[in-house]
């Protein structure tokens, strides 16, 4: 699926949880959201993208990337 859209969607989720003062709570909240609402093929593709490293474009927010990597 269009990775630009997936990354934008994931980053949007990240922006909401970024407000949480506790970083680990933010990460787990993002991961839970993705697990609960993203269909497996979407998750697969975003995990694949996150695995390519922090520099891979389109850029995932670091917080989001960390959350995604916990889904593996």
């Amino acid at each position: 699926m269009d990775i630009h859209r997936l990354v934008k969607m994931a980053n949007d989720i990240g922006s909401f949880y970024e407000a949480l003062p506790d970083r680990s709570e933010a990460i787990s909240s993002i991961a839970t959201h993705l697990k609960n609402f993203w269909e497996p093929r979407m998750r697969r593709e975003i995990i694949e993208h996150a695995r390519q490293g922090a520099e891979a474009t389109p850029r995932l927010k670091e917080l989001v990337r960390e959350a995604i990597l916990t889904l593996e």
Partner: protein
Amino acid sequence: MLAIDDKDLGTPERKSDKLISLEVDGRTVEVPEGTSVMRAAALADIWIPKLCASDLLEAFGSCRLCLVEIEGRNGLPASCTTLAEPGMRVRTQSQRLTKLRRNVMELYMSDHPLDPFECKAGGKCELHKMAQAVGLDHVRYSSSGRNHLTLPVDNSNPYFTFDPTRCILCSRCIRACDERQGTYALTIDGRGFNSVISPGQHQHYSESECVSCGACVQLCPTDALMEKSVLETGPAERAVITTCGYCGVGCSFKAELRGDQVVRMVPNKNGLPNFGHSCVKGRFAWGYATHPDRVRTPMIRKRISDPWQEVSWEEALRYAASELKRVQAKYGRGSIGGITSSRCTNEEAYLVQKLVRAGFGNNNVDTCARVCHSPTGYGLKAALGTPAGTQDFDSVRASDVIMVIGANPTEGHPVFASIMKRRLREGAHLIVVDPRRIELVRMPHVEADYFLQLKPGTNVALLNAMSHVVVTEGLAKEDFIRERCDVREYEMWREFIVQKRNSPESVEQTTGVPAESIRGAARLYAKGPNSAIYYGLGVTEHSQGTTAVLAMVNLAMVTGNLGRAGVGINPLRGQNNVQGSNDVGSFPHEYTGYRHVSDPQVRAAFEREWGVKLDPEPGLRIPNMFDAALDGSFKGLYVEGEDIAQSDPNSQHVAEALAAMEIVIVHDIFLNETSKYAHVFLPGSSFLEKDGTFTNAERRISRVRKVLPPLAGMEDWEVTCALARAFGYPMNYSHPSEIMDELARLTPIFAGVSYGKLERLGSVQWPCNDDAPDGTAVMHVGQFVRGKGRFMLTEYIPTEERTSPRYPLILTTGRVLTQYNVGTQTRRTKNVTWYAEDRLEIHPHDAEQRGIRDNDWVEVSSRAGSIVLRAEITDRMQPGVVYTTFHYPETGANVVTTENSDWATNCPEYKVTAVQVLPTTRRPERRVPEPAHHAEMSHQ
């Protein structure tokens, strides 16, 4: 005229704990204090003649037909305006009364044809009934004297006529318009004998303020105000109670029939939530059901570029099922799915999600609520534990402060607006938050205390600022919070909300609302004591839609405005069954009753009932389906009742996605934009042609009853069952009541719902189970459904859709009273009289800068596309913001909307699009892309 089987008790019900006992014609009757003698008599089955009274209106006491004798009192008081008193002894019949009543009646009839054969209502109007009741069989006065029998008839309204020669000046119509509708369109013109009822200032109905709600027509006791359909078809013979198929108010109606023809729809006096009121859509705009455009035969075609071929039901279903199977075999289990509409009944939506989950073996099912209220579901569930409005509509009658945000109830939810306006006239305060000056801001006898005209896309900033004021000015209800909410989360939120960036002064620039107004509105809301929030798509259809819902919950919790009558957070749902279609498991991640598909216990219950293994992973949402289609992994779709090509954002993208699919099955009453991409068309049944239930915005489940046979021979639920069977999954029900029984078996919040109970109670609000056998009007009483209420951090994050020198204006969207959503139904009725095209509203300043005059054609372009429509210059808009509706496919408003969406639910950001508007020589064309361009992409 009231419905043919209506009983009218003469004056409205009064509620009181104190009961009064009196005697009427020797019969003892007990009534609540404040009840009229007329109503008390009617409750004892003694029917006092009346003309100016109705239990839908406050007593007026003008006709003098209802006189009675009361022991120990002089004179003959009018029973409609006299209140029952303890020990009162009333006589309703005597020679003196009979004579007096006959005289009164005779005077009325001297200016009115007595012959019931001349009555346009076939002698069934109240006037003729009363003449009979008082024994009047001839009139001594000749009609050749001064009379009104030559006045001209007003035929200007498309749905009803006003014949002043039949009017008896009881003023029931005026009172209906004032008290019930709140429009104040009618007056009495002239004096004494020359008095006539007049819309506006000697105007015709069509030129006046009249909004065609029909209340005056319903309450006219003669044939002066009559539905044209009755004049054409003749008076009705029977009535069937059913539910409106339009908006989320979900009004109860009586469909009146003559033979197998619908004569008229009359709002059900005893039905909730509308208490006998309605709007122009439900009341009059049902003609689409028999429109010649209705498709009556199933059709198939191999390629979308081929012409449709009419086939039998068997062949269409066989073809549809075999294609779905072929696609699934080739591309995998997850390559097909289904979409339902909020126009479907609960039972239909339930069956489609069952077909997808149990038959297709995946969770790729979604519903059009995705594009409207999905943030409501997410936000309310996360914070309070259940994704539904907290109140019943009637709760607003106990509100002291009403905040309307991102909703336009007088246009979108007119019957609720009438209830709300009544409360506002009684003195409740009003806060309106909207980028556009909606009618409610100032109308007869209603004026907002605060109108916060914010910039589109800044709801979260404004709501945060209101909470900031509450907390920093010491207005928080700490007791409520400590008792009912999660205190750790509250403390965390408190720390966030008091920060300076959330103050009214800091967000003044962003929102465009003066800080002092935000402060004033916040104080008013906080002090209530009963403050309620009503909101619509102006809140949800944003990239921060869910955040805004959460911000409203925060505001309500911090001020203690949840869990009793008069308060709460209430989504005004667009379509009739948005609530219901969500409740019955139409989202890809949830079974019925909002339980996640990954929950092993819940899944096991469904597996037992359905006899198959179920997929524990969430499925694709509508926008994900389109993306997956373009990606080549999603190839087949069954769409019931939803025109996704027209109603989803960025039409070009949707069109390409649909064209990339190999089997698209459209199940609908008309061919539509989506069916241009379809390979199978299954003709649907209208709400008049099927049995089922709808659940309105206040969680009220009401029956939809079949009054006509389905035009194409099958009710929609039967079609889905047949498709499932053709696909190889057995689905056998003999009546939708059995589907409801299954739903109730599987769903705790519905456990107590059955057709039998709906028959008995009329309607029921979920949760309905052992704890609440008659349903639940107000939720979260004493405790939130999730236990402790959850404050969540709602940082304002501006949308990425920004204005620029190229696109300097913001386009936002809405709707009008007479049209409904993408207009499939209302465009096929006489409602087009009032609104025949979408228009672009633009502020005079913006128009002048661009050399645009009223009515000019303009081109609206965004980063996604451009459309052409006419301009309407109005200061309802603020400079920098333009507005349009989306009722006509020619306009194709979604050609310009972008693909930005809510972070949590992917609900599209319809309400904020950066655009440029310029005069143009172009004219509108059909804007949803034609499939011909994509024909070669079909892989058939």
